[in-house]
């Protein structure tokens, strides 16, 4: 078969060598600028996402002296210390009449410092820290990661004198998350199975009903629920108001699970039905074992949700011994004392389980977002 190409079609005219080289050169230049632009943009915006993250971690390792250092430094600094007579003392550069010396500070009271020479610890000297505008004694700082912040942050309470530490909050968060996961898995799977695989009169209208509850803002129901748990069941200040509702299914997880259950070949269920299996047996012995990926998604997202939840604990938990991490951290932060390094250390401890979960189940995360996201 011959193709008639019109003679005047511009591309058909043979290019001279120079023209073709020119064309390639223009394309190369254009591609270079395109790639330069995209690399620059992706990196600059990447910094916007990355830097706060790094700043949280760096601050968590900073010493008290370094937290408010201006300008802020991207590495944690701490006093350089030496051991003098069994004590760890900070080293200072001190301008003495005999020149600049490195001396260890024993104490600094009202602008007058008492120093010892680490090499000759029997003798103490006294110097003003500052004379007029000139600083006489300046601490020697070095890069040092202060792991102690994590211990300090976790072993303190969110406010003084309550006798519970952040470890208790951490444990409380784990307990709430664990039972929420159990409740969510146990209650949502049968409901989703019914909507995915059972045929019964009224199923579709109930499904519309369950989906429409997604539209309902929590504010509409929370006050009666609060009064119900607090005044009728007297469950205030316990985990029960946070955990029990998860045992009664919710629209998001039902929808997510149903979408997955529908992808399981119906023939398998029918074959089992012919063999006399009950719906419960089909559900527990065929459908659930095939649904491990989506069960993992639900588990991860429930953990994320329960771990992150602030409003629930804020409403129902009143005594610090029951606080979750979210509530404890907020309480700590609201107590005027802005101990940023410990706040950030506690925040890191709060965030790490989720980051770990993310790296173990990266696919699950992304899949879950896509499944709930693109549900049109």
């Amino acid at each position, binding site marked *: 078969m011959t193709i008639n190409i019109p003679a005047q079609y511009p591309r058909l005219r043979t290019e001279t060598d120079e023209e073709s080289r020119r064309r390639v050169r223009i394309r190369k230049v254009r591609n270079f600028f395109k790639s330069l632009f995209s690399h620059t943009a992706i990196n600059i915006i990447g910094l916007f996402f990355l830097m706060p993250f790094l700043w949280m971690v760096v601050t968590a390792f900073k010493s008290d002296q370094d937290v408010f250092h201006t300008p802020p430094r991207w590495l944690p600094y701490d006093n350089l210390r030496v051991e003098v007579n069994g004590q760890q003392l900070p080293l200072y550069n001190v301008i003495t009449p005999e020149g600049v010396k490195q001396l260890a500070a024993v104490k600094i009271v009202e602008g007058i410092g008492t120093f010892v020479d680490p090499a000759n610890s029997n003798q103490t000297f006294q110097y003003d820290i500052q004379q007029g505008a000139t600083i006489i004694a300046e601490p020697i700082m070095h890069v040092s990661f202060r792991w102690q912040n994590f211990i300090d942050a976790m072993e303190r309470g969110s406010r003084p004198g309550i006798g519970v530490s952040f470890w208790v909050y951490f444990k409380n968060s784990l307990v709430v998350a664990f039972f929420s996961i159990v409740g969510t898995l146990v209650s949502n799977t049968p409901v989703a199975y019914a909507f995915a695989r059972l045929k019964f009169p009224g199923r579709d209208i109930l499904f519309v009903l369950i989906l429409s509850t997604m539209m309902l803002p929590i504010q509409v129901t929370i006050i009666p629920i609060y009064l119900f748990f607090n005044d009728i069941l007297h469950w205030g200040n316990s985990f029960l108001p946070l955990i029990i509702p998860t045992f009664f299914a919710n629209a998001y997880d039902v929808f997510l699970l149903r979408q997955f259950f529908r992808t399981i070949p119906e023939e398998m269920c029918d074959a089992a039905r012919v063999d006399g299996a009950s719906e419960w047996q089909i559900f527990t012995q065929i459908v659930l074992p095939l649904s491990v990926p989506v069960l993992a998604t639900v588990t991860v997202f429930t953990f994320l949700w329960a771990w992150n939840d602030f409003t629930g604990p804020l409403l129902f938990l009143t005594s610090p011994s029951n606080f979750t991490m979210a509530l404890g951290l907020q309480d700590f932060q609201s107590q005027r004392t802005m101990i940023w390094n410990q706040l950030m250390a506690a925040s890191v401890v709060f965030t790490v389980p989720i980051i770990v979960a993310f790296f173990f189940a990266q696919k699950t995360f992304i899949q879950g977002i896509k499944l709930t996201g693109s*549900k049109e």
Partner: protein
Amino acid sequence: MDALRMSGRKFSWPPKISKMGPRQRVNFRIGMLFLLPWTIGFLAFTLYPMIASLVYSFSIYHSKQPLEWVGLQNYATLLTDDLFWKSLANTVYLVAIGVPLTLLASFFCAVLLNLKVRGQSFYRVIYFLPSIVPTVASTILWLWILNPNTGILNTLLAHLGISGPNWMSNPDWSKPGLILLGMWGMGGTIVIYLSGLQDVPISLLEAAELDGASWWQRLWNITIPMVSPITLFNLITGVIGMFQYFAQAYVFRGSHGLGYPLNSTLFYSVYLYQNGFLWLKMGYASAMAWVLFIIILICTLLLLKVSDRFTYYAG
């Protein structure tokens, strides 16, 4: 959107058990048994609370004292409550500025992350990670970053010769600060956009390129229309979420009172919380909740209606 498609059909409830055959009756029973967890949950945690809060909204109710029916008084009081209007205006600010800005930025990020760049998967993780940092932790972190004197943002701005604002205590800058915090955690929206971009048929883009369409023309005439259903989805969930904005604002005030500074972070849900749980005006708070529900409903329907013209559904 299953719900929307189904809503066109005719339903009757409850199904008449007497009219069912024996087989259907058994199926119905089994089905209802499987649905039991949700049925109880729906009655106890959705239907009953809805009715109760509707009743409360027509009453004066201080939890411990008996309920006193006052008709529309709560709703009438709302109209003359300055703080109510203030909180509504603050929330509308977030919805009108925060949501479109976040959508635009996350679309742009998704386009970038869809380019063939070395280390693409690394960048995707970096863009996504902030969105899973717990809300309380990320809000406290941003309080630290936005610290006017020692925060890194104002230090950075100072390097560029800009004197940064007093983010936390200036009522004009507290909401932009919160929007910035929200944009830091927009990874979920980016992921949804990214999956949408990956569904745009490559053949279409290549055909356009052969015809001489520029990058911008392809983006404007192919990519953006093709992801418009996702934009609509993100828009609606964004608007609904923003109207319920609470935890970040609660934490952001630090040790100051709710709404600090000068009620500029007194958002709708914050004021509702204040009324219902701090001042124990349960009836008034319930009325606020129902007004919120109606506002959200109207916004959603309006967006769906308007979007008909701008949304393209392939296939």
